[in-house]
């Protein structure tokens, strides 16, 4: 598949270089065959991961905003 200017970005898994961790987690953690039974020890942890990831993503955004705010303050003082 090819790219088309600035409006489409195609990420091929063959090289893997451009695939983000979020993409991998989106697909790998989203589902897959579930074979139920007492032998399966842990499947429930997946939802905890989502909570953790969302917290981290929110933290990144908050951190970016704080940096922007600090820069705005410095510029204002200049």
């Amino acid at each position: 598949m090819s790219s088309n200017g600035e409006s489409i970005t195609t990420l091929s898994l063959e090289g893997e270089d451009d695939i983000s961790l979020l993409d991998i987690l989106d697909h790998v953690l989203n589902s897959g065959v579930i074979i139920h039974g007492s032998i399966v020890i842990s499947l429930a942890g997946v939802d905890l991961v989502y909570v953790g990831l969302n917290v981290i993503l929110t933290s990144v955004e908050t951190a970016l905003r704080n940096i922007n705010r600090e820069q705005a303050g410095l510029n204002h003082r200049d």
Partner: protein
Amino acid sequence: MLYLYAISQMPKAAPPNIASEAIDGAGRVEALLCGDYLCWVSRVSKNEFADQLNERMQDLEWLATAGLRHQRVVGELSTRLVTLPARFGTVFLSEESLAQHAKDRKRALRAAFERVADADEWGIKVFAIAKPMARAVAKDAGGADYLKRKAELLKPRTGKKLDTEVQNFITALTKLAVAASPGGKASAGQPGLVWHGSFLIRRKDRKKLESALAKYATSWKGTRRIDCSGPWPPYSFVGEHVQ
């Protein structure tokens, strides 16, 4: 203990050797005969993959490494055999228990194999292209107002109602797909994300997917960006058949 990566149909020749690293970075990926199918596993420690799995799953560094290893094994398998990816973190105590569970679900597995045969999963994301800050935020806005509006621009837009053009885009892709699935939660917080989802596309229809993406990318130039990743193993299209 056995960590399960995927279940595949029996190849006509000998099962392929899998070169990708095992989930723990130490073991070897091997095939176990389970009824009519092959279960692809590696031996792992009970401590790491059962007793402490919940804690490990919250450690992003561990999760990133394990998630990538899981994907590499399943990805390698998918290029060689018709494969049903197992859910991340599925472990069994013994070969006998795994074989018994696979045999018990023979009919459901067969239906899942029929569904994903000759098809790949493609991940699609639509992003709004942010307007230049100078135009989006009025120059005369005060400091607090400026930051508030700038923050608004950074928010993910997944909660908003989709506009007609994006709805039409989703409909067009759904028509040429075997099935569609909502996107995973990991990407949901990405700034500017308008919509994301996965499509199961027959390999013979890949050109149609490319044409549809190119058509919308052209008409959305400067306003929206489409990210397409794939081909993925059919992670999002095997679960409901085998529960």
